[in-house]
């Protein structure tokens, strides 16, 4: 077998994060290589380097013998590297055929688009890979289901000239029947001698479809094994390395008084949501991405509107119509995407940490700098934020330290209820454990905490009780002693029987 894709000692760094360190791997013709690793392990970075979205800092990439280390996205495509993205960009108001050929429409004389040729090509590709009848070449982009959009993205990749196809989480929007068809197609691509990269969190699928597995952890390759010679357990061990999460045990600190009481809440996303969180309790929210958990946090926090329902804080009904109302009602919210919604990256640590308590630190609207440092400094030290000074720009800190600054903001505010949406997303393992200890400590001091997490071990380790959201509805709470990964997953997928 000859390598069609050869990655040699590739490295890439971003401000505050070393995303990939000296990574080498190969894909042979007719071989399926799976990339696995936790969120932030470097899988996406590698894919983005290969497809030309990022330029590498060091190393070399060769595709079918030709060097493509610094290819632009267009050059990478032309060279034969095709990425099937997890969330494809579909133009809503043009046809499927045009979507497939977007940017590369076949032309006739005078630059006119050759619609019949496009249509014929799309239908030929559909028939060849066993998807005939699943997609109408003339349908508009906006009419497609998620699975059909994904198929359009696959067709884009399979246009002539393809040498290596990379699938990024290809099954996240597919039913099991569709997954079977996808696997049949991959088998066909293999037989045609293409190189295939398969990135997924779903280890069972990875074991079923791949020939070799590359394991990444914190940007470093921790394993590169033939699938036949390994087991799921070994892969998990290589992915996680230190078993920090499983070492974390939380003593229950729940107290009788109810802090948050939500009754019959309805909104654009939610149907009849009711739940309570006690002082000192951590309530975990499980569910699939897109089930409505982030939206629920934002409805409670006043960022999105509710259509009906009652929200009480410590027994008092609150009419929360904007985040400022929520803060006044002693609620704090650390959003999922800290760079987009949490932090002001160009401003200093102290400003970011003091943002929610400015009014408290001022008299007649005039800030007292000394007070600001007094209020925020101890919190920053307590969280062990690694920063040269309080005046450092937050954008220059590492991911874990940035997340701590978001938490510092709410610690300084001292809310009764703290909502944490994916509190350890894109945070390295060491910082993760520190954040767990911090959340645990806050709860033991009497704060009510709502944790949304898509990482199962995190959810199980942190939560006193777990509720699962599916299609905007909430399951009854599962007590810690009854909570297993299988139980939560089946509630999230709607496959299990209700308790």
């Amino acid at each position, binding site marked *: 077998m000859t390598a069609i894709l050869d990655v040699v000692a590739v490295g890439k760094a971003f*401000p505050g994060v070393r995303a990939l360190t000296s990574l080498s791997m190969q894909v042979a013709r007719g071989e399926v290589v799976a990339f696995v690793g936790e969120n932030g392990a470097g899988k996406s970075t590698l894919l983005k380097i290969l497809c030309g979205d990022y330029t590498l800092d060091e190393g070399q990439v060769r595709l079918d013998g030709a060097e493509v280390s610094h290819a632009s996205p267009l050059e990478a495509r032309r060279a034969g590297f095709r990425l099937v993205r997890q969330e494809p960009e579909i133009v809503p108001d043009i046809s499927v055929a045009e979507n497939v050929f977007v940017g590369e429409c076949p032309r006739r004389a005078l630059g006119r688009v050759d619609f019949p040729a496009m249509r014929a090509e799309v239908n030929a590709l559909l028939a060849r890979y066993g998807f005939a009848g699943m997609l109408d070449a003339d349908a508009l982009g906006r009419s497609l289901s998620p699975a059909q959009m994904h198929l359009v993205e696959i067709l884009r990749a399979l246009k002539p000239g393809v040498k290596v196809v990379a699938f990024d989480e290809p099954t996240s929007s597919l039913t099991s029947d569709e997954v079977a068809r996808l696997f049949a197609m991959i088998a066909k691509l293999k037989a045609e001698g293409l190189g295939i990269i398969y990135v997924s969190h779903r280890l069972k699928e990875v074991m079923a479809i791949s020939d070799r597995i590359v394991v990444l952890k914190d940007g470093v390759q921790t394993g590169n094994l033939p699938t036949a010679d390994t087991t799921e357990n070994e892969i998990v061990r290589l992915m996680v390395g230190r078993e920090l999460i499983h070492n974390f045990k939380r003593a229950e600190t729940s107290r009788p008084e109810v802090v948050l009481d939500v009754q019959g809440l309805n909104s654009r996303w939610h149907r009849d949501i009711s739940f309570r969180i006690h002082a000192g309790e951590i309530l975990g929210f499980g569910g699939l991405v897109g089930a409505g958990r982030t939206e629920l946090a934002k409805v409670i926090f006043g960022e999105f509107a509710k259509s009906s329902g009652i929200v009480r804080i410590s027994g008092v009904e609150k009419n929360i119509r904007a985040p400022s109302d929520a803060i006044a009602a002693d609620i704090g919210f650390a959003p999922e995407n800290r760079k987009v919604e949490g932090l*002001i990256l160009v401003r200093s640590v102290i400003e970011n940490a003091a943002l929610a308590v400015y009014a408290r630190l001022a008299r007649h609207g005039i800030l007292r700098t000394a007070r600001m440092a007094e209020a925020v400094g101890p919190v920053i030290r307590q969280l062990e934020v690694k920063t040269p000074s309080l005046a450092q720009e937050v954008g220059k800190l*590492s991911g874990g330290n940035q997340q701590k600054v978001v938490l510092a903001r709410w610690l300084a505010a001292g809310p009764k209820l703290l909502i944490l949406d994916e509190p350890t997303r894109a945070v390295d393992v060491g910082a993760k454990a520190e954040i767990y200890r911090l959340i645990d400590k806050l709860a033991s001091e009497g704060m009510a905490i709502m944790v949304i997490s898509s990482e199962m071990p995190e959810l199980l380790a942190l939560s006193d009780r777990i509720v699962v959201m599916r299609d905007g509805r909430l399951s009854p709470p599962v007590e810690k002693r009854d909570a297993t990964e299988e139980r939560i997953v089946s509630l999230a997928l709607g496959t299990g029987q209700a308790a």
Partner: protein
Amino acid sequence: MTATPAADPIHRLLRFVGAENLSLIIALILLVVLIATQTEFFFSSRNLFNIGQNMAVVGLIAVGMTLVIVSAGLDISVGSIAGCASVVCALMVSHAGSVAGGIGAGVAIGLVLGLINAVIINYLRVNAVVATLATFSAFRGVAFLIAPEGRPVGVLNETFALLGSGRFLDFGSFPGIPVAFAILVGVALAGHFVMSATVFGRQVYSMGGNPAAARLAGINLNRMRLWIYAISGGLSGLAGVIVTARTSSGQPASGTQGLELEAITAVFLGGALLAGGKGTVVGTMLAVLLLAVLSNGMNLLGIPTFYQLVAKGLLLVLAVAIGQWRMAAAETRQARLTAAGGNL
């Protein structure tokens, strides 16, 4: 962890000016040396007096523009607002004979027009550039409509004229300090205080740096914009009042055209970022001074106006390009540092 307050005056001055503004000061010194070696008239007290007086109008507008740009907005209508204020102020002074009433009316019309900008941006959800480009035209039209027959309104009031060409501390050959310049210094100090020491000012930086995060931290963005554009409008109104006093007439257009370009250039040259979240009143004021010296130097050296217009345009591009380049350089440096093993 925290910066210790430095006791000696040099350090205090440096902290007030800000290390990031040092390059502006160096550029200013170089420019002054260059011009002074070409023409000895530059350092004459009369010329310095003129520079101070000429700075005032652009400077007042640039203080407001600093708030607007730091909040990630833009206000193109400032010159037109100044035109409206000039006419309204002149009508008030010449008909009612009240100097205070004229100043008040000029500032008030500026505030109202600024509020209109904010309302368009907030509630009609029109992007700030487009909204103020529209009012740039509309407000200029209003200025002509208010002026009887669209002509300048003459003002004959000696007290009022002091605002534009008055001076104090003039002894012997020393021409004194222009009143308009003193007003600018007062407004700039107030602006510096607001931006650096008040909750409102810090919130302006926050909303400019990341509006989504600012909103989730409890900041009411719409209310902030009402204040910011009203302040920008009010200061533009005050600038219009000073134009009226200097020319002894309410001018719908002359004297207030192109002010938006100069003010925006000054703010970017002063270190503000196009994306918002960064910029200081001190930096803006240094840039206003630099621009005033440059313009004065070009006049003294007899460079024709047409070349000056080209130079002003180039300067705006340069100012923004320097800001973008600095940001990219900082990012690369940071990535290199990370790659070298630091994980901070």
